[in-house]
C-alpha cells in the first residue's frame, strides 16, 4: 500500500492526542476528546477542523467558464466574483464523478475544491477535457484548508483580522484576508450545517494559523474536532457524502440534488442520462430515517415495509444533537414518504423507524 499522506497539521493532531486513521489515502484525526463532545461544541460554540486533505484545482483562461459549464450539472451563470456554488460532476451515464465547490475569482479564473478520495480521479477526468483557452492546475499540495465551524466562529475569526467578516454572506468568499498577519482566503462555507468559515492558506503557514486560531478560540470554548464529528454533523444537516449518497452508480437526482442540476443551462456531461432518468422516473430516492426503537442505524442495513424490502441505508449514526439514531437511505420512490413507519433490520431483528423530511437538523437563524 502506498504510504499515507499527511497534512501540514499532522504534528498538531499528534500533539493534541488525536486518534489518527486512514481516510481517502490520508492519515487524519477521527477524534480528539470524543465525537459526541466535538459535535456538541460545534453546534453550541465553535470547532476547528483540518480539511487540508481536500483537493484544489485552479481553472483559468478565456474558455474556463465554458469548460466548467460542460462539466458541472449546476449552472455557472449563477456565479459572480466572490461567489461560490456547489455542483455534482457526472459521467455520461448519469453516475457521479464527484461533488465539488466552485469559487469564482473572476470571469476567467475559478477554484475547484474536490473530495480528497476523488482528487486523482477528478484530475484525470478534468484533464481529459482541457483544450485551447483553458489551463488546469493542481494546487492541492500548495493549499492547506482549515474549517472553523459553529456559532462562535465569527467572533473567533474577527479577533485575528481587521477585515469585517459580518458582511461576508453564505457561499461567498474573500480572496485575500490577513489572519494574524497570515495571508488567507476565507469563505463562508462548511460541511456541518452550522455557521462557519473555511480558510485556505499556504501549507508552511498552516501550523501557525492553527495555533493562532486555537489561542483566539480560548475565550470562545473552541475545540479541535476530527472527521468523526464532521461526518455526524454533515449527516445531521443531511449533506451528501461521496461514496455513500453519491457514487459512480448514483446520480445526483437519485440523491435528491435537484436544485444543483440545471437542465435549462444547455449541454453538460450526463445531461441526456439525467433527462432520461427524470422522464422514466427514478428507481430510488434518498430519504431520511429516524429510529424509533433503541439502537443505531448503520450503512448497509436493509429496510422493509412489512414483507417488502424497500431500501438500504447509505449513512447512519447516532445523532448527539437530536439524541437519537438517524440515517439516510435509498428507498423505492413510492415508499419514500415522510411519516411512514418502516423497519430497519439490525442484527437480523426488525427495528421500528420513521421516514422523515430532511434535514434532520437546521440551525435556528441564518
Amino acid at each position: 500500500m502506498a504510504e499515507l499522506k499527511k497534512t501540514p497539521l499532522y504534528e498538531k493532531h499528534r500533539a493534541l492526542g488525536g486518534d489518527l486513521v486512514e481516510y481517502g489515502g490520508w492519515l487524519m484525526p477521527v477524534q480528539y476528546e470524543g465525537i459526541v463532545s466535538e459535535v456538541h461544541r460545534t453546534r453550541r460554540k465553535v470547532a476547528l477542523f483540518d480539511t487540508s486533505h481536500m483537493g484544489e484545482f485552479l481553472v483559468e483562461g478565456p474558455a474556463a467558464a465554458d469548460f466548467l459549464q460542460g462539466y458541472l450539472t449546476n449552472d455557472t451563470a449563477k456565479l459572480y466574483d466572490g461567489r461560490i456554488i456547489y455542483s455534482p460532476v457526472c459521467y455520461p451515464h448519469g453516475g457521479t464523478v464527484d461533488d465539488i465547490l466552485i469559487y469564482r475569482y473572476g470571469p476567467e479564473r475559478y477554484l475547484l475544491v474536490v473530495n480528497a478520495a476523488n482528487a486523482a480521479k477528478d484530475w484525470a477526468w478534468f484533464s481529459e477535457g482541457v483544450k485551447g483557452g483553458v489551463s488546469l492546475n493542481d494546487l492541492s499540495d500548495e493549499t492547506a484548508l482549515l474549517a472553523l465551524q459553529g456559532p462562535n466562529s465569527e467572533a473567533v475569526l474577527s479577533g485575528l483580522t481587521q477585515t469585517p467578516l459580518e458582511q461576508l454572506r453564505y457561499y461567498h468568499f474573500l480572496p485575500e484576508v490577513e489572519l494574524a498577519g497570515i495571508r488567507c482566503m476565507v469563505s463562508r462555507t462548511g460541511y456541518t450545517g452550522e455557521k462557519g468559515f473555511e480558510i485556505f492558506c499556504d501549507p508552511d503557514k498552516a501550523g501557525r494559523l492553527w495555533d493562532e486560531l486555537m489561542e483566539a478560540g480560548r475565550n470562545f470554548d473552541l475545540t479541535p474536532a476530527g472527521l468523526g464529528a464532521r461526518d455526524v454533523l454533515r449527516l445531521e444537516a443531511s449533506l451528501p457524502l461521496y461514496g455513500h449518497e453519491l457514487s459512480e452508480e448514483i446520480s445526483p437526482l437519485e440523491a435528491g440534488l435537484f436544485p444543483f442540476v440545471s437542465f435549462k443551462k444547455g449541454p453538460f456531461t450526463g445531461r441526456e442520462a439525467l433527462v432520461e432518468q427524470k422522464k422514466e422516473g427514478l428507481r430510488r430516492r434518498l430519504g431520511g430515517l429516524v429510529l424509533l426503537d433503541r439502537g443505531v442505524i448503520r450503512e448497509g442495513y436493509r429496510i422493509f415495509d412489512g414483507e417488502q424490502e424497500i431500501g438500504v441505508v447509505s449513512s447512519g449514526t447516532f445523532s448527539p444533537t437530536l439524541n437519537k439514531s438517524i440515517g439516510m437511505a435509498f428507498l423505492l420512490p413510492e415508499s419514500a414518504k415522510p411519516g411512514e413507519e418502516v423497519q430497519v433490520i439490525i442484527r437480523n431483528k426488525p427495528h421500528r423507524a420513521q421516514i422523515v423530511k430532511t434535514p434532520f437538523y437546521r440551525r435556528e437563524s441564518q
Partner: protein
Amino acid sequence: MKWEIKEGLKYARTHEWAGFEGDLVTVGITDYAQDMLKDVVYVELPEIGQEAQVGESLAVLESVKAVSDLYAPVDGEVVEVNEALLDRPELVNEDPYGEAWVVRIRIDAGYENPELLGEDDYAALVKEEADR
C-alpha cells in the same frame, strides 16, 4: 498506566472483566476498552435465561462510529442484565467497573476458564496493544 485495571477481577483477552462471587459472575468491559470505544451511545443486552458460551457475543456496545461485541468470558446462563445501560449507555464510559456492569452469568459449581488473565497479565496485554 493511563487505564484502571481493578484488583480481584479476571480479564479476557477481548477486554471484558469478570468478577466471581460464588456461582455468579458479573461481566463488563474494561476501562481500556471503553476508552478505545469512546462515547458509548447504545448497549444491546441479551435475554435473561440465554446461554453464555466463552468467546460468543453476549452484548453489543455501540459508539458513534463503531459496533463492538462483548464476548462471554465464562460458560453459563444469563441471570441478570443491567437495564440502566439502556437509558444511560454513557455509564460504560463513566464507570466501567461499577455502575456499567453489563450481565450476570450463573456458572456451574467448580467451573473455571483457565484462559482468563489476572491483573498483571492483563496490564501487560493492554500495554502491548496500546504501544502498537
